[in-house]
């Protein structure tokens, strides 16, 4: 007597049987709470509002890749979806950050917001380069398959000491990625870096995305290649293996590392980079490159009070609050022109 398989038994005429592995993948949900630190894992949605040109669409996809794995890579948005729809969906899914691209008056803007009530930081993208462009510009573009399995490390530079909008911006960027415990983190999972640098004179933020490569220091190139490729080298012209191993090769330009770029590893990263040995850290740029300027900060999600630039009260420029340094006044004056256009257009957009 033949018993039907459990898959078939359960389906009862609902269609073809789905293999168990596929089912598991479909039902797998990204965890909400980090197992290691116990904190909540921040998830994000990257989407666009309004009509945007195709290059901006590529940029949107690149940004989604940056935020992997805790983002929806294939998020589909329809024209009739409102921000409210996204908000409603984000609750049950545990999505905490929104990144909204828009193109009011042909100027690309990026809004970074925190759900559900969080502040919104509006940036104007002054210049950007897509990941494909960067790969084309490199001689050996590098994108190993596993680097998007873990969140990037976020490094901020130049943000301190500039007062209010940047204080909260620091917090925002820091909490955009899940927390990492340096004592327990597996070094092999740190494969990407997101670098945000604030340039004080120009008042812009540089957004860069790199992949990390570790190379053991003190190992000659030949031996390294041998270990990496696992292929037997060509020893035709040599009399002895020692010739191969000890041949003095030309050092590559990048071999001249300053001490600062080498680290002594805590644990084994992979076969080549072993614990307590020195490794050089090599960064290779992948992903989009952006130059953005902070234009507006709102206290609600694309709504609420405008906190930055400081609302002009009558004719007074507000230096009442001691926190705001010259910085804010400068930017308020300087960017107010572009701001007016930008913000007005955006408000129209939202309606």
């Amino acid at each position, binding site marked *: 007597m033949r018993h039907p398989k459990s898959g078939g038994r359960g389906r009862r005429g609902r269609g073809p049987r789905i293999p168990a592995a596929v089912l598991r993948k479909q039902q797998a949900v990204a965890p909400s709470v980090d197992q290691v630190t116990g904190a909540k894992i921040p998830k994000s949605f990257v989407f666009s509002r309004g009509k945007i040109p195709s290059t901006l669409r590529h940029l949107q996809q690149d940004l989604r890749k940056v935020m992997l794995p805790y983002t929806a890579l294939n998020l589909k948005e329809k024209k009739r979806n409102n921000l409210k729809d996204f908000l409603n969906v984000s609750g049950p899914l545990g999505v905490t950050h929104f990144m909204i691209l828009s193109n009011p008056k042909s100027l690309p803007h990026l809004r970074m917001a925190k759900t559900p009530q969080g*502040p919104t930081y509006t940036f104007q993208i002054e210049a950007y380069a897509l990941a494909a462009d960067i790969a084309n510009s490199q001689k050996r573009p590098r994108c190993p398959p596993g680097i998007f399995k873990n969140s990037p490390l976020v*490094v901020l*530079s130049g943000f*301190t000491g500039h007062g209010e909008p940047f204080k909260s911006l*620091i917090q*925002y960027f*820091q909490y955009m990625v899940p*927390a990492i415990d340096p004592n327990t983190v597996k070094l092999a999972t740190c494969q990407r*870096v997101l670098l945000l640098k604030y340039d004080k004179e120009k008042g812009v933020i540089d957004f860069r995305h790199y992949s990390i490569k570790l190379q053991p220091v003190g190992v000659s190139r030949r031996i390294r290649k041998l270990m990496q490729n696992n292929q037997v080298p060509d020893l035709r012209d040599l009399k002895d293996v020692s010739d191969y191993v000890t041949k003095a090769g030309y050092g590559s330009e990048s071999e001249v590392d300053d001490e*600062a770029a080498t680290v002594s590893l805590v644990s084994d990263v992979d076969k080549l980079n072993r614990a307590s040995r020195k490794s050089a850290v090599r960064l290779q740029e992948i992903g989009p490159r952006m130059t953005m300027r902070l234009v507006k900060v709102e206290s609600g999600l694309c709504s609420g009070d405008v906190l930055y630039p400081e609302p002009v009260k009558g004719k007074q420029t507000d230096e009442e609050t001691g926190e705001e340094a010259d910085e804010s006044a400068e930017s308020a004056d300087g960017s107010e022109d572009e701001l007016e256009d930008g913000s007005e257009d955006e408000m129209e957009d939202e309606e």
Partner: protein
Amino acid sequence: MGRKPAAAAAADHESFPATMPADLLAAADCGGVHGHSLFFDALVQLIPPRFYLQADDEDRPWYQGLSKAAKAAMKAQSRANIKAARRARLDPSAPPSSTLDLLKKSVADQAAEEEEDEKNSEGESEKSGDEASSDDEEDGEMEEDEDGEDEEEGMQVAPASVVSEDRSVTYEELRERLHRRIAELRGNRCTRPEFLNKPKKEKGKKAKGKNAKGKDEGKKRKRADGAEDDGKDGKKAKKEAEEKPDIMYANVFVDPKEARRRKKRRVKNKKKELEQAKRMQEAKKDPEKANKIAWDTARRRAAGEKVHDDPKLIKESLKKDQKRQQKHAAQWKDRQKTVDKQRQEKQKTRTENIRERAHQKKMRKIEKRDKKLMRPGFEGRKDGYVNE
């Protein structure tokens, strides 16, 4: 080994090889007494000596009454006897043990015995007892209650020595064989203990090394990175960076102080939260503080903390809680009602059934009583008088 040269010598004069019954029968055709004798010899040859010849049973002790040690000894002896008998049966140089030969031997022995019986009978009985006991266990007969004392002794000694010798030989031999085999097998395996133990130790050390080094390495790394684009991340976010270029990393670990501070801000009771929010709103009216408060909440929200500053939302949440509680209360009442109803129904049916049963009992009794009165010509019990 129990070979009895004397016995062999004694039976020598009759030791033509054990003749097959067929041969004897063939030879019985010669006729006369000799022929008859040969015929009977042939018949005797067909019978196994075990059944034909009388064995001394009386001297054998009652097996079940023996002690454990004695039983073991008897068993060992019988086993040895069996072995010896098997060997003797198949041994070409052994004295013949066919029925006829044994019969002849016994006849000869009896004659010898009768002579010795007059001399001393006690010793013999014991010895013959021994031999007899071993006899009965055998398949083939190793006839041991014959010949002379020395033979008996030899035989007595022989089985004992056979047994002990056999045992010692076999045990030692087996042990030696076992050791040889073990050494053989061991030769193929790795017997150096260093090689067996090392990997485990290494693993343990590695793990410990990792943990111990984690903190040190972290510190080293912090000092080492001065360059701006250093990818490895290290510490908790500190506002006052130690190096000149201020680098900050994504938040790595919750400072216990921060955690405690955050927890303090959390108010458990929603009503209290409402009041706090209202107070906040009042405070916001003050323009100086409003900005500060706004930035503060923005910062906390950006950091992932939930700030409840809108009293409207808190009121909604309170209302939701109330509604939920009411709904649950209504459901509970409903459940209670159904339970009561069911209980009542069950009780009703039960009382009904009881009453019915009692009633039925009465009716049955009446019927039974009235059955007797259903005579032909009568209609049963009647109330009142007959002529009404």
